[in-house]
């Protein structure tokens, strides 16, 4: 008869390292890169890789948390351009393309984060309170939010930016760009928060079985709403970093990022069905994509052909996880 002893531990031990499955891939990429191009392994190039990925990595952090909680947010990419654009227009004079309200320039970052939080809150309202489908709501919001950038700016690029919004994306702290420090600290907070704090664990509970989470006394609606607001805020911060790095806000800032964000999260082991994956895994996903991007660019592969490679990476990662995990995917 069935014994009551659970399956012996080897599987469990393996499962603990599941979020590190991409580490060998990263090592291989480092070796391949070094062989292909001598400049690849220089600290300058690697710093460059990290800095380029800093902004998008914040989106991956946000999306990973939302996916783990069993929801979805496509609108993050539009917030990356729209939040800083609107914040900047609130403070710069009308002559530079702003609203001419004359608000102090130091307010631009708080305003930007506030706009991001408001978008997240509105998403949360529709999805949680109004119980609409997260996919469709955020798809609509992706379009609307981008339109809210195009409308006021008339599709023009904003060049005359206050110094405060440029600082974070361009400053260097202790020899590394500030954006790397910021992304690093936030990821560390995310990893710890989701592994060692009740609020973080509640995301897994909600994504794994929402009724069980409710029965366990987790305030499901409040937590989910909080995750959407946090996601919007992180997207706005990503916008600040990207603005500082480029020195201007183009009308297509952030456009198309969401595919890379999902790719990074999914190859990093975050499940689209919710309840599975870690922030560390998502981080390794970002690094893989960043390194591949860098190697392709160094080797002079045309930017027009790069999407084929990224798409292929996602498929290969899915196939590997299907073989390793053994379970059919939905």
């Amino acid at each position, binding site marked *: 008869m069935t014994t*009551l002893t659970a399956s012996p531990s080897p599987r469990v031990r393996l499962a603990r390292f599941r979020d590190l499955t991409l580490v060998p891939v990263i090592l291989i990429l480092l070796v391949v890169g070094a062989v292909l191009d001598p400049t690849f392994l220089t600290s300058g190039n690697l710093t460059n890789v990290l800095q380029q990925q800093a902004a998008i990595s914040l989106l991956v952090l946000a999306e990973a948390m939302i996916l783990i909680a069993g929801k979805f947010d496509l609108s993050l990419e539009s917030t990356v351009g729209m939040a800083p654009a609107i914040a900047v227009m609130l403070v710069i004079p009308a002559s530079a393309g702003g609203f001419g309200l004359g608000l102090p320039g130091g307010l631009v970052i708080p305003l930007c984060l506030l706009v991001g939080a408001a978008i997240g809150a509105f998403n949360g309202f529709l999805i949680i309170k109004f119980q609409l489908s997260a996919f469709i709501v955020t798809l609509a919001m992706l379009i609307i939010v981008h339109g809210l950038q195009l409308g006021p700016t008339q599709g023009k690029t904003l060049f005359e930016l206050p110094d405060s919004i440029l600082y974070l994306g361009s400053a260097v702290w202790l020899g590394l760009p500030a954006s790397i420090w910021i992304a690093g600290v936030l990821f560390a907070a995310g990893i710890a928060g989701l592994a060692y704090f009740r609020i973080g*664990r509640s995301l897994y509970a909600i994504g794994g079985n929402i009724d069980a989470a409710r029965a366990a006394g987790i305030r499901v609606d409040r937590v989910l709403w909080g995750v959407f607001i946090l996601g919007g805020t992180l997207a706005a911060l990503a916008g600040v970093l990207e603005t500082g790095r480029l020195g201007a806000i183009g009308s297509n800032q952030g456009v198309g990022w969401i595919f890379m964000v999902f790719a990074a999260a999914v190859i990093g082991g975050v499940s689209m069905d919710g309840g599975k994956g870690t922030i560390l895994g998502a981080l390794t996903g970002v690094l893989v994509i960043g390194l591949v991007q860098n190697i392709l660019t160094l080797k002079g592969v045309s930017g027009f052909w790069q999407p084929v490679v990224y798409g292929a990476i996602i498929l290969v990662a899915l196939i590997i996880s299907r073989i390793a995990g053994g379970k059919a995917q939905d």
Partner: protein
Amino acid sequence: MKYHVEARNVVKRFGPTVALNGASIAIAEGETHALVGRNGAGKSTLVSILTGLQPADEGEVLFAGEPAPALADRDAWRRRVACVYQKSTIIPALTVAENLFLNRQTEGGVIRWRALRARARELLDTYEVDVDVQALAGDLSVEQRQLVEIARALSFGARFIILDEPTARLDGPAIERLFTRMRSLREQGVTMMYISHHLDEVYEICQSVTVFRDARHIVTRPVAGFPHGELVDAMTGEATAAYQSRARTPGERVVLAGEGLSLAGRYREVDLTVRSGEVVGLAGSASSGKVGLAETLVGLRRPDAGTVTVNGVRVRPGDVPSALRAGLGFVPEDRHHEGFVPLLSVAENATIPIAGKLGRFGTVSPSRQRARAVQLIDDLDIKTEGPGQPVGDLSGGNAQKVVFARALVDDPSALVVINPTAGVDVKAKQALLGAVEDAVERGAGAVLVSDDLDDLRVCDRVLVMFHGRVVKDVPRGWTDHELVAVMEGIEQ
């Protein structure tokens, strides 16, 4: 007399439906109290009110004579009442340890995983549950998961525990182990409310029983001296005779045969023949391979060796359409999973196998589909608003009847039904068994797989499986004891 738990004149409405209409229940301290009733009698609603998941519209709930705590105070509720719900409240992707301490991993601040695992191990040891706390909950068996849920429920310090159909998905020995556990909890003074469709379990484990019918309280009596027939009458509201299986003589023609069937890890070298006008039972524990064998007969599984013949036609192994074409109808084990498409109508679900015959050139004629469905609804006495109602809206028993309709729609000459009466009430159960016998009287041959010994009484003979082999062919007239002994491998 002082009651440990009491609900008085509880009224609960959901829109126009009255789920509970002035229902009451009183459970004495230390007893195991059964709550029985047909589907829709209001049992589940009472559970959610007694556990504080929903407020009652009227009436009150008392714990040890004190009014129940406020609905928002989940912790206070959990100190008074624990519940193992019908639907699992385990989170599969998390470890057992974390599931046990969900949302209370720490008093605040950082979670110390090592300490959490130690606490989990201690908790499981207290209740003698032998499960690795580091295993993922999704990897546990149904029984283990349930034990983890019971341990978790009790860990809040409640002395009252509700078990909502805990045996529905357990096999015989696991049910016995659960009962042993329940008895020892009772000895420790734990009060229990036990919900089940299996009345024999009520007689075995409970001291008193409350019957609900049509959202009302009907009767509460000690189990001892409550005749089985009267209990069924109280549930159905009419005098119902116990199911009488009919006598018949099997024909000569073999309608379904398996020869030399083997599937690694499931069953080995099984031969079986079913004649027209014969019901053959398949019995055995969960690990006996009986479900795997039945699923092979219908083509859901592909055997490693052996052949399946339906109506004299050798069907392609592991191919459901070819078995259906040869004249087979089947009722799968899990109706929610394989039985019906919840959003589609009764008519559409019931006629899926004959869709090709309802019109020409791949079209489906709605009027013919409807006509066939109306006839089936009538034959099987399906309680529905009409053939257009989505099956997902029906009660468990009626949804199962739709699955039967699908199996019977093409007048199959061979019928395979797996656990047909799981989670359905007394009357629906009789109707379903009657449907099997009707089909057999029309000349079909049937294989009936069931964990419920009562179901197997309709069989002309029962093949008992043990560890993947058919060990005995038992003719009609067996006693429970005889059959169970063979199923457990105690005697042959």
